[in-house]
């Protein structure tokens, strides 16, 4: 009886913890197996603890090269998609023009299209254009599919912005450039940042579209896929864990800065 009561009182917490565990278990496995010393080429069974892979993350040929390619593509794709997407979002929210409604729906189409179909069609397009497959085709493709997500994120933010704030800036002697830099951009920043993060994650992760359009270029997801056919080096887990840790550190730093600012202001 007391157990039932205890359960009833803590049900929400228990459900929350279980869901969190469900979410984080794969990450834990990645991390744990980055310290494995596998027998043979496959890192699928726990043998014994070892930090060998952490000491030499680039020890597998081509791994760090592919990582660098992926980071570069993700960086430029994020930049391109964020700049273009932000401008599109502002245009869609702030201006009335012919076919605005149509553009508003068309922007979502790349999100709805099955990725593998998109990938094959892009390849057809690039081949017909006589484009050399490689870094640039991948970058163009990545900017394209990230764009919709950036537009959605920024648009939501811009829609919630009070247009009288920009009028107030103009009224207070800020010209168009100053108004944009001092008021519009800082206000839209959370939306733009969300869009950029989303774009980075999508681009860094992408396998299907990249695989179709990369030619001889090898990105990190392609490397992992390729090596999984022949055996999985522990270093893959190391890179994965490191990325996860970096992301967590960023979030923590953001929270700390935010908290300190709040405390200073109060």
């Amino acid at each position: 009886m007391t157990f039932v009561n205890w359960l009833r009182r803590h049900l929400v917490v228990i459900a929350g913890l279980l869901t969190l565990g469900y979410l984080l278990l794969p990450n834990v496995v990645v991390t744990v197996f980055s310290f494995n010393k596998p027998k043979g080429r496959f890192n699928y069974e726990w043998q014994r603890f070892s930090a060998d892979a952490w000491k030499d993350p680039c020890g597998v040929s081509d791994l760090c090269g592919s990582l660098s390619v992926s980071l570069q593509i993700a960086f430029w794709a994020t930049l391109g998609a964020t700049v273009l997407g932000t401008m599109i979002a502002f245009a869609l929210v702030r201006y009335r023009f012919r076919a605005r409604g149509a553009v508003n729906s068309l922007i979502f189409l790349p999100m709805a299209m099955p990725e593998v179909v998109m990938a094959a069609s892009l390849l057809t397009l690039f081949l017909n254009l006589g484009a050399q497959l490689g870094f640039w085709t991948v970058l163009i493709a990545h900017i394209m599919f990230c764009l919709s997500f950036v537009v959605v994120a920024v648009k939501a933010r811009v829609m919630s912005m009070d247009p009288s704030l920009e009028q107030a800036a103009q009224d207070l002697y800020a010209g168009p450039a100053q108004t944009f830099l001092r008021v519009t951009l800082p206000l839209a920043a959370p939306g733009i940042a969300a869009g950029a993060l989303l774009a980075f994650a999508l681009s860094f992760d992408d396998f299907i579209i990249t695989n179709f359009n990369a030619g001889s270029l090898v990105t990190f997801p392609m490397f992992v896929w390729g090596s999984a056919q022949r055996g999985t080096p522990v270093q893959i887990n190391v890179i994965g864990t490191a990325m996860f840790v970096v992301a967590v550190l960023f979030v923590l730093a953001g929270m700390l800065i935010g908290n300190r600012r709040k405390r200073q202001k109060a």
Partner: protein
Amino acid sequence: MMTTEAGGDVRLSGISKTYGSFTAVHPLDLTVPQGSFFALLGASGCGKTTTLRMIAGLEEPSSGTVRLGEQDVTALPPYKRPVNTVFQSYALFPHLDIYENVAFGLRRRGIKSVKKQVGEMLELVQLGEQARKKPHQLSGGQQQRVAVARALINHPKVLLLDEPLGALDLKLRRQMQLELKRIQTEVGITFIHVTHDQEEAMTMADTVAVMNAGRVEQLGSPADLYENPRSTFVANFLGTSNLIEAEVDTRKGDDIVVKAGDCKLTLPESRCSAPTTTGGELLVGVRPEKISLAHADDAGGIPPGRNRITGKIADSSFIGVSTQYVIDSPVCPEFEVYVQNIDRDTRLVPGTEVVLHWNPAHSFGLDASQSPLAGTTGAADTQAVGEEAA
């Protein structure tokens, strides 16, 4: 504590604004004298905010010019006009603290040392302690004061206020009305205040322009507008008026005698804004608080020479300082009378036959071709206005 730059009057000449086929503001001429507290009063959609925004430069006029003193600013963008606005939503920058909000205009004009001025300004609006807070941490009234400070620190030639008190509760609104009036007196800058609240306009402004459907109906001091409305819209929008349909009968010296049903009423010709040819129609107006109410049995005691109307009390409501009666009279179906509660006559209950009488000098005459109901909606808080102007 601060001096107005050599300024001048705000002069709008033939200014208008059309959106497609809709005319928000009909060509309008308006002069706001330097240093005055001017109110644009009207119901929502009357064009008052559009007019204000054209002065600010946030709306481009379809025709006409805006002049500030000698300078024609019609073609100037808002950031080049020496005017500042207090927005209806305050429009405080949420990402900047109070200090930076107030300093914004100075910094944009390239002024480096803003500390002293910002400090003084925050003192003027009594927010010195809150300088490092963000706008959302302040109450509505405090935010409102920040908005005023942020505009005033630039020493504009004109401060434009777009319904700045609309979001505040009644008590705070009263307090801020006095506060704004105090600040205006202190800094001596021209204030143009847009409001739909007739009481607010009357309390604060030296001059009120009553706007209706994109036109200025009448312009004058609050007391003048209240006592001498020249249209039924003004008569009803500012406070409450009883309007009696009548026919011009004869003249008697400076007075006109009119017939309403079988009553004869007198009013001074000088207070009649309509043509007064004999036999012509006229609306005779009288404010509810100018009228005395007598029980029909006491009719003999009414002094001679007063306008008299008979009727029956249809409704009465006691509201503390006064009692409001609605009288059903043959000449006017819903005649309103406010009686001060000095000596309450307990016989005056609904159904009682009464005689209404008032000094003929308190009557005014309006053109009968207008709707006697114009401006009646939205004129709510009438009792308070009646008392202030009386």
